[in-house]
Structure formats: C-alpha cells, structure tokens
C-alpha cells in the first residue's frame, strides 16, 4: 500500500517542470513534493493563501501563524509570499497555477471528476477543489486504481461531480492515462502487470497507446 502511494507520487513528480506553480491536494498528492527533482525549482501554492511552501515543519520549526491548506504546520521557502483568499483564488481560477494534483473518488473517460461528497454518507465539502480543477492549466488525478476492488475509473461518474471534463491525466499504481478527445489513452503501465490487468480493473474503455511504456 505505502509502496503504491510512493510509486504514484514519484511518477506524478515527473510531470513537473522548472518554474511550474503547483498546487498539491491533501493526502497522497502532498507526497509528490518528496519526489521533485533537485534540478528544478517548483513553486508550491497553498490555497489558504501563500506560495513558496516548504516541507512540513519539524517540532522546532513550527510557526503558529503558518499552516498549509490541510491545517498542517509547514515551512516557507525563501521568497515565499502570503496573500488573502481572494488573491489565492485569483491565482487559481485565473490560470496562474500550472498543475493541480488531486485525489478522486471517481474519474471518467470524459475527464469528469468526483471527489467531494458521497450523498448520505460523507459530505466534507468541496473546499477549493472545484476552483482548482477549473482554473489550473493541467489537472492530474493521483489515486489508487480501485477502491476495495471496485473500479474508480468509470464510463460515467455517478457521484456528484467536482467538475466536468477538466481532468487531463490520471496516475495510479497500475498506470498513467491521458484524457483525450477519443477517451482514455493508457500511456504507461506499471512493471510486472499486464494490459489485461489494467483493463480488468477499469470500467472505462482504455485506448492502449502504440508506444506503451513501463511506468517508472
């Protein structure tokens, strides 16, 4: 399980380029920060109101006035800046965030995303997710391929949507799928599993890339 998460996070990190402004969602997406190449500088945006987020604060680094969007005490890199929530979402919705990485309850082959509520069960709210998904230039869903054996990558999401047609890339422990006009394109596959394994774990139709690579 932990190994799955590391594989996903390290693969997502490869999508980031020097100078990118990136928002990492709570949970697994946060782990992506641990795998960013030291050769590039990525600017982490936290939607509660700052850019230039550093690693989680150690006990002696805790600043009571500095938390990330998950309420966790973090550090700030040199040149970090703070702003109000209106500016934070101007950055997000205005297209100034290059990549947002989020988890999902469901994604479908049209790039629809559901990650904010299960009616009658769990309704945490959308927080900043709806704005992030609409506003970021590239939306990456990072999640485990299935939930308790049930497919999460569907023909059509049946949970309430977070946004329609905004997802660009799905990274799971089984592979990397791009949302295209024609459907989901399986571009990379994890080592030691077969295309059939991925297809069986996916409700959506998958187009298998002629250049299918092994996921690193």
């Amino acid at each position, binding site marked *: 399980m932990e190994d799955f998460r590391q594989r996903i996070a390290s693969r997502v990190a490869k999508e980031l380029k020097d100078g990118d402004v990136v928002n990492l969602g709570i949970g697994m997406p946060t782990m992506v920060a641990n795998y960013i190449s030291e050769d590039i500088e990525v600017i982490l945006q936290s939607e509660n109101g700052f850019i230039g987020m550093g690693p989680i604060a150690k006990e002696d680094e805790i600043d009571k006035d500095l938390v990330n969007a998950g309420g966790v005490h973090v550090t700030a890199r040199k040149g970090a800046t703070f702003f109000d929530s*209106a500016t934070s979402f101007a950055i997000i919705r205005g297209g100034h965030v290059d990549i947002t990485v989020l988890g999902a309850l469901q994604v479908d082959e049209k790039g629809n995303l559901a990650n904010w509520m299960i009616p009658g069960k769990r309704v945490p709210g959308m927080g900043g997710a709806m704005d992030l998904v609409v506003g970021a230039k590239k939306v990456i869903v990072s999640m485990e391929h299935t939930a308790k054996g049930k497919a999460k990558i569907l023909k059509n999401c049946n949970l309430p949507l977070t946004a329609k047609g905004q997802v660009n890339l799905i990274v799971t422990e089984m592979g990397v799928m791009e949302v295209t006009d024609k459907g989901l394109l399986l571009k990379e596959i994890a080592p030691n599993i077969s295309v059939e394994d991925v297809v069986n774990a996916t409700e959506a139709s998958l187009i298998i890339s002629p250049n299918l690579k092994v996921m690193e």
Partner: protein
Amino acid sequence: MEKVISMERVYEQLKDGMTLMIGGFLTNGTPEGLIDCLIKRNVKDLTIICNDTGFPDRGIGKLIVNKQVKKVITSHIGTNPETGRQMNEGELEVLLVPQGTLVEQIRAAGAGLGGILTPTGIGTIVEEGKQKIEVKGKTYLLELPIKADIALIKGSIVDTKGNVWYNKSTRNFNPIMATAADIVIVEAEKIVEAGEIEGSNVVTPSVFVNYIVGGEVIGRF
C-alpha cells in the same frame, strides 16, 4: 472615535439570529477570543459565513457543538464531524460553496458589486437554481454578493485607528470579510499606536474597521 473596546462592549452587540462572518482557515487566523465571547453570551440561531467549521474544540466548531448555529455558509465541514451530524439530522442547515466562489461573493458585497461570473461549479450541483450567463462562448454562473451584520476578524498587529496587518497564512478570509459587514470587530494579537505599521504594508485599511479588542484587553473579560 475610540475604536479599542472591551469584550463587554462586544458582548452587548451580539443578538440572536444575527448573520456573522468569522475569519480563519482551519482555525489559523480565527478570532478565538471573539468566539469565546459568542459562547459566553450564548446567542442562538446564528447564520455563520466562514471558510470551514473548524474542529469540535477549536474555532467555529465550538459554536456548532454548543448548538448556537442555525445555518452555515462554508466551503468545508470535513474536519468537524459534529457539523455533518447536525446536518444529517436536520438540526443545522449547511450551504456548501466552492472556496473561491465564497470569497468572491463576500468581496462583491464589500466592493458594491451586484455579483460576479465564475466558471467554477458549471456542470455540478453547485449550478442548481443559479442564472447562467454566456460570455464569449463560455458559460459562467452568476454568483451573488454575501454580506453580514458583523464580521469577526483576527489581526496580528492592529493600530489604534484600525489598520490591520496579518502574519503569514493567518490572513486568508479576514481582509475580505472586513469589507462586507455592517460592523467589523478585529481581535488584535497586538495593538500599536497609529502610524507604527508602515502605511504601504497595511492590509486592511482603518476605514473598514469599527472596533478593536484584544492586546492587553484579552483575558480581562
């Protein structure tokens, strides 16, 4: 025009059924002293506008647990299970709003705008009951202003005129809420003389602030 007042003076202004904005993000930048004042006063049937409902024992969560809230307009309730429980059992009305939309709605009220058009929420249940407007081939939701009777704000440094400076991530919704209420009360971590905050560094100009509590005053209540 003395703006620095005691908690007793705040206490007197609170009434059942009021609409309050309360600053903070998962209790970071939340005016806990003012929330304690609300609890002590035990005003009921409040409508609270806030980013999130905090935790059961911290921030706005305390008001929920104490059953003082009738309705909450917020973007996230996941960190406070009591909010979800009261919602599911019909004790509390919860209106969930995307965070970026919520802050723009508050800003619109403060800035005298009749609303803003946002792409956020299109194709989701957020669009239900709202006017859709097409601009240059793209569809937007018309989101309306949200204002309050009182805004309760937390400031790191506040001068006696009411100019406010916020440290790091405590800023969040505070400066925007300070523009959109009939009465704005700032809980100051530190109160300084007018002019001690460099004018170009002030975030909330004094014109938005009616009252200041805190500094030495905190704890005297």
